[in-house]
Structure formats: structure tokens, C-alpha cells
């Protein structure tokens, strides 16, 4: 079926594009706000402001999940990204000399390349998602389709292999981080051993 025919079929079978419901309008508006926040995140010259705009962006995505009835995913998004990743990011920023106000050296000169990569990634993602779902519609008035139960069943029945593979990947990353942070320097090792001994003696 050609794209035009698909669109025509969608126009006759699915809900129309020209009579959006309240939820659809809200979805679009939140999407625009999220996009705006994301743009500010990458263009602002104040490092901590960028991190805080990232909070808005990730929160906006959580709201989008909610509007698509995927409640569980939305809360996990808030928990992991807003609650942990951003805190880690801010923690890291506080350890740097990030000034209050603009950082003069926040630009790296890689801007055009970064823009190119971002555009290519965005186009690829949009294309894949649009192609995968085409004219599928979520019935927002019916029973919730993204509840915890549904997500759990799908994750642990149909997608359990990718899930386990991801766990192994994360485990490998974790071990890698530990190995990297414990570089074997003879002088350091001696110090650490002393500190351990002192610690034990205290107890």
C-alpha cells in the first residue's frame, strides 16, 4: 500500500486528524514544551541551568507517557531520571568550577557536528516509530492499556531475553566502572591498605 493510500485509509477508518480530542491537544502542547525545554538545555550557557532544563524535559516526557496511559513507565521515568540521574548530574556539576552565570568556555566548537548527529538520530527515530506504528490508535477511553500489570506481563513474557541481555550489559558497565576507579597504582594501594588497617584497629 502506498503511503497516500495508507493515509486515506487512516482518514476513513481511524479517528480523524481534524477533530482532535482534549488529550491529543494536551499531548501536542506538552510535546512542544518538552521540545522547547530540550532546545534550551543544549543551547544555554549556564551549566546548572542546562541540568535543570533537562529536569523539565524529562518531566515532560513522563507527562507524555502518562497521557498515553503508560502510568508505570511514567513513574519509573520520574524515579530514575529525575530522581537519580539528574541528582548525579548536579552532584557532578557541583564538583566542577561551574560558575553562577554564564560559562565562557561552555562551547566546544563541535556544535555543527553535534547538530548533525542530533538531526540524524531524530530523523531515524521518528522514521522507525512512525513506520512501526503507522495508523495504530490507542483507545484512551477504554481500559488502561499501559498499566503495571500489562507492562509486567509484556516485559517478562515477550521481551524477557532483551531484558536479561540488558541486565548483563549493565552489570558489565558496573564492573567496568569499579575496575576503572580502582586503578592499580602501587603507591595508592599501599595507602589504601594502611587506611584499611587503621579502620579495623579503630573498631
Amino acid at each position: 500500500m502506498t503511503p497516500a493510500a495508507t493515509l486515506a485509509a487512516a482518514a476513513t477508518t481511524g479517528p480523524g486528524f481534524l477533530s482532535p480530542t482534549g488529550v491529543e491537544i494536551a499531548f501536542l502542547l506538552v510535546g512542544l514544551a518538552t521540545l522547547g525545554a530540550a532546545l534550551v538545555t543544549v543551547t544555554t550557557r549556564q551549566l546548572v541551568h542546562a541540568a535543570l532544563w533537562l529536569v523539565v524535559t524529562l518531566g515532560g516526557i513522563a507527562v507524555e507517557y502518562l497521557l498515553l496511559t503508560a502510568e508505570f513507565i511514567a513513574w519509573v521515568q520520574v524515579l530514575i531520571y529525575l530522581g537519580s540521574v539528574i541528582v548525579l548530574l548536579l552532584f557532578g556539576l557541583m564538583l566542577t568550577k561551574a560558575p553562577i552565570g554564564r560559562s565562557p568556555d561552555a562551547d566546544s566548537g563541535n556544535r555543527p557536528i553535534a547538530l548533525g548527529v542530533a538531526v540524524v538520530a531524530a530523523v531515524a527515530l521518528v522514521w522507525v516509530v512512525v513506520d512501526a506504528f503507522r495508523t495504530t490508535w490507542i483507545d484512551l477511553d477504554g481500559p488502561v492499556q499501559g498499566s503495571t500489570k500489562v507492562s509486567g506481563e509484556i516485559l517478562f513474557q515477550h521481551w524477557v531475553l532483551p531484558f536479561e541481555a540488558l541486565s548483563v550489559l549493565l552489570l558489565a558497565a558496573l564492573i567496568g566502572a569499579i575496575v576503572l576507579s580502582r586503578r592499580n597504582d602501587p603507591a595508592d594501594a599501599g595507602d589504601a591498605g594502611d587506611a584499611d588497617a587503621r579502620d579495623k584497629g579503630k573498631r
Partner: protein
Amino acid sequence: MNDVLDVALRLIVVFAVFLVLPLVVGQTEHKVMAHMQGRLGPMYAGGFHGWAQLVADGVKFAQKEDVVPAGADRRIFQLAPAVALLPYLLVLLAIPIGPGEGAVGQVIDAGVFFVLAVMGVGVLGSLMAGWASANKFSLLGGLRTAAQLLAYELPMLLAAASVAMAAGTVSLPGIVEAFEWWWLPWQIVGALVFFTAGLAELQRPPFDMPVADSEIIFGAYTEYTGLRFALFLLAEYAGIVVLCFLTTVLFLGGWHGPFGAEDLGWVWTLLKTAVLAFVVIWLRVSYPRLREDQLQKLAWTTLIPLALAQIALTGIVKVAIQ
């Protein structure tokens, strides 16, 4: 129209609880601490045992000048108290105090995740305050807050996951619904881990390293005055209320009690919450502050293994009784 009225009524009730209970906890803290330390505490305001002390404090805070340091990042500095306080209001919406639809602000399918996620966001307020104040003590406080949150979020989540496993649901009313009395010994380790990690997340003594007044003045809140400072204090007390409610709902059976579970369920919930709040105050008076390395050690080498062991135990028992 009835729906609108219903929603409005629920919001008003939750908001009233949000405004009243933290103040009650605050006043209780004044008096309990005073008695435990063999002194009187505030006795003058309002006449009877100084009951109006917090009202007087509120008036005092409202009269103070609202100062923003010259070097501060103004907007973030001013926004921080709201970010610290609002999450607790949202969390209160999801906590059931009695059986049935009428006793919870809003039934949320993934309630456990909702409350833990939103509580975690509250810490962003402290981080914003710590960074935007342009003060070294504030920055240190912010750093300690972040380190503490990262260490204690995990055991808290794992302990909550254990109860969710036991109940077979992540909805808060569902968990209380499924509660049996023998869950108490079964989940006791998880309960202790959850409560301890919650205290640490609220930065209550003995986990108040981020605001340690003898070292870094008042941590991230050093530069705040007047109402904004009061909002941070209110956030701390609202946090105590939320933590005690959550521990009650997840581990102590919420509205279940020896009698009157149907009609008087909410009394049980409030009673258990009050006892837990008393324990929070008690701990503040009894324990010295933990050092930063002791804090981290407690989380990573004690609480997380305990929480993992609790999850394993929950899984084994769950499979055995099925």
C-alpha cells in the same frame, strides 16, 4: 458537576492535612524534645503549654525580610523552596488512610512508584538551594544532600519492592488490602530499612550531615530567610508525615487493627503514623550525628544487603505459600 465537587473536596481535604499535620508534628517535637531533655520547652505563647508557639513562629517568619544574596542565581534561589515542598503535597494525594475509594485522594495504579519517585524529586529543591546560594557552606550542604540521596534511595526502593512482591501489587490501597498480621515479622527487616533510609532521605538526625549546624551552618538553607526558610522547614515536617504514613501503609497494615477496621480504619492509620512520628523525634534526641563516611558505609554495606536479603526472603516465602 458532582465530579468536579468531589475532586475539589478531595483536594481541599488533602491540602488541609498537608497544612495541619506537619505543624502538629512540629509542636509535638518541641514538647517531646523538651521533656526528654528535662526542660520545659516553649511555654508562653497561647497560654496553655505554649500551644501557639508555631503560629507565633509563622508570624515571625512572615515578618522577616526576604533576602536574596547578591551573588546568588536569583530565580533558582527563589524557586528552590517550592520545589522542595510541593512533591510532599503530591505524595499525600496518593496515600490511603482508610478502606474504600473515599479515604484516598486519588487511587494510583503504580502508587508505590509514584510516591517514591515524587519524593525523590523533592531533593532537587535542596540541590538547587545549595548551588544557587553562592555560598561555600551551602554548596557543601548540597553536595552532601546529593551523596546521601544517591546512597539511600536504593535501599528504600528495594524495601518497598519487597512489600510489593509480597502483596502482588504496586498499588498502595492494594498492598494494605492484602496485608495480614504475620507480614509484620516477615517484612520487619524491610520495614526497618525503609524507615531508616527514609529518615536519611529527609536529612533528619542522626542523618542530618547535610545541614550539620556545627560544621556548615545550615547546609543548603544557610542563606535563606523569612518565608522561604519556613517553607524548607515545613518541607522537612511534611516529609516526616509522608514517611510515617508510607511506613504505616506499606509495613504496618494501614487501617487494619484488632477491632474497628471497617469504620475506624482511619483512626488506626493516624495512630500508627503518630507513633512513628514520635519515634522520629525520639531518634533525633537520642542519637549523635553520623559522620559522612559512616553515613555512606551504613547505606552501602548494611542497608542494601539487608534489603536484598529481605527481597530474597520475600520471594522464598511467597513461592512456598503458593
